[in-house]
């Protein structure tokens, strides 16, 4: 026989799965709409894609041949139909700039940026939350003041400026960290499995490569993390400071619950929820906004690739890039929603409708 709480848990799981399913279906529709939008916008923006592909010396005949090959001589809906048919076969067309299938490009560049921004997110979560919790708990103390000042500086300074400063001090002056790339040119890269250099090195048993790859990650990831440390830290700080005044926290103290439990369990849980939402958005933004830092550190990443396709009116690649960014937002938002559902029981109860 099932106990009442078991039944309840089962019900929660069911509604949760149903909710995730619903959200996935919604995401497919959103991405479909997005693909139509970007497909047509890319084609009405001034500039001749065939010319961009073939260069100034190409003859009219050569250009016409390219147009026919890419179906650019057909009407927009027909072009979209061809593109969609390709998509269903896992083919996003050929990049006019790299001359390779777009899918090959994506497989190469996305993991590099993902590795970078995952590491940046890790740094910003650890440092930003530590700062936010401390500043909130000791609000209006000297630490709060210093962290406020540092945060404003972090928010106001563009990440590429931070990147250049970090590179100058830590690799040129102090020689503590390498400056560019994912691993030194002389080093043999591990066989690609995940595309994450550190992970692949570990999988291949090349521990020294993994360590070197990690040191290559630190500076660019930190440059990207600074603004998020500042913003997310401040958000956590203000909700901690606010919740500290709540009756229930006073009651926890009255009941003699130890301080570490109050802070890291009873205070942190309600305070971190607004931050988690922002963290998700920040992560997805980095997917496309990391390009300046990728340029500074010569990181062969997705953000840089995205920028290049836009500048070269590389139609197929542009559409694919926008879709990848859209997909990132959709996935991250869904993950954030699931995370919040686990963090916040009031959301859970509401969704169950009881």
């Amino acid at each position: 026989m099932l106990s009442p709480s078991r039944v309840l848990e089962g019900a929660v799981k069911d509604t949760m799965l149903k909710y995730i399913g619903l959200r996935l279906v919604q995401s497919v529709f959103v991405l479909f709409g997005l693909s139509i939008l970007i497909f047509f916008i890319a084609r009405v923006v001034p500039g001749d894609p065939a010319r961009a592909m073939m260069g100034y010396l190409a003859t009219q005949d050569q250009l016409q041949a390219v147009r026919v090959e890419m179906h650019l001589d057909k009407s927009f809906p027909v072009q979209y139909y061809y593109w969609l048919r390709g998509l269903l076969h896992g083919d996003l067309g050929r990049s006019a700039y790299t001359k390779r299938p777009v899918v090959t490009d994506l497989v190469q560049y996305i993991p590099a940026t993902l590795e970078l921004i995952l590491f940046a997110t890790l740094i910003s979560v650890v440092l930003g939350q530590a700062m936010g919790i401390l500043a909130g708990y000791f609000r209006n103390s000297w630490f709060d003041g210093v962290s406020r000042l540092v945060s404003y500086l972090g928010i106001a300074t563009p990440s590429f400026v931070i990147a250049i400063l970090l590179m100058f001090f830590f690799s040129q002056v102090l020689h503590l960290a390498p400056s560019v790339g994912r691993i030194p040119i002389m080093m043999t890269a591990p066989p690609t499995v995940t595309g994450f250099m550190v992970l692949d090195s570990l999988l291949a048993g090349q521990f020294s490569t993994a360590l070197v790859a990690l040191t290559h990650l630190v500076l660019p990831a930190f440059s990207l993390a600074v603004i998020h440390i500042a913003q997310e830290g401040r958000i956590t700080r203000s909700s901690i400071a606010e919740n500290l005044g709540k009756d229930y926290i006073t009651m926890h103290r009255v009941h003699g619950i130890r301080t570490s439990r109050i802070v890291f369990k009873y205070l942190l849980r309600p305070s971190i929820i607004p931050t988690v939402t922002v963290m998700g958005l920040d992560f997805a933004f980095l997917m496309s906004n990391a390009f300046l830092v990728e340029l500074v550190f010569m990181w062969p990443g997705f953000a840089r690739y995205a920028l290049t396709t836009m500048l070269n009116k590389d139609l197929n690649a542009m559409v694919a890039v926008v879709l990848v960014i859209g997909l990132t937002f959709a996935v991250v938002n869904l993950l954030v929603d699931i995370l919040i559902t686990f963090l916040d029981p009031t959301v859970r109860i509401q969704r169950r409708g009881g």
Partner: protein
Amino acid sequence: MALLEAKDLHVGYRTFEGYLHVLNGVKIEVDEGERVGLVGETGCGKTTTVKTILRVLPMPPAQVQGGEILYRGEDVLRMSTHAVRDLRRREITAIFQDPLQALNPMFTVGTQLRDILKDSKAGRDGGRLTKRDIEKRCIVALQETGMPDPERIMTNYPSQLSGGMRQRVCIAEALSREARLLLADEPTTNLDVTIQDQILRKLDELVDEKGTSVLMITHSMGVVRDLTQRLYVMYAGSMVETARTKELLACPRHPYTQGLMKSVPRLTGEGISEGIPGRIPNYLEPPSGCRFHPRCEHVMPVCKEAIPPFYAVDEDHFAACYLYRS
């Protein structure tokens, strides 16, 4: 020796507008096993008094300017934070006014109750309780408050419970670790009238059984009549009168208390009473001397000069009023 004794307590708040001098020489005594009431209007400093005793007043903005709070002869205000926490774990507990705010919405009732017992050191020889003991005591604590199906309540979040149920949970939390002194700050004010009575009766029964001393803060005369043996009347941060509850209700001496009694609506009375003219003073620039003097019909020149001390008006009955100087 009294169990709890607050002497000449002065507490204020620093705000943007200036310094609010709220508690102006508060004195309270609670003996072992005694039930004491503290009545006064909203805003007279009752909650500030309770929070000062519990040492949970946010400082800043609050500031303790003077006085002492003796618990079994030891000054709570001068204890280390460590000692205060042990005091809360073993000796003093509280129930607050608003049960909707007093429970953490993010955690189940069971989680919150268990953690209290986990940290309470209520085990044998002041050690930790075993897991099984904690579980057992949680259930018992909830059961004692008259809650049906405590096992299910443990798995509920506060938002799934009614106000009355939540206040029962608060009572269970407060009484779960056998504290000696309960500070109850208007425990039923925010509940439906029909529930109020049930909860008070249950609370009464429980403290009786456990022999807990109680300081009951309220603005309801009905509550103090039923539940307390002695009474303090507070006005604008000062104690104005104290006596045995029956005596004080039957024969109030301080002009403020007399006015307060008159403004209690009676079912058998002659309609709505006139109340006391004027309002509670502004704490930014409180009246000099007796803080009640601007509203008092017996005001004398001396009232504006100095805070009146407690004068004995009867056996075990004191009033802080110059009318009783002789």
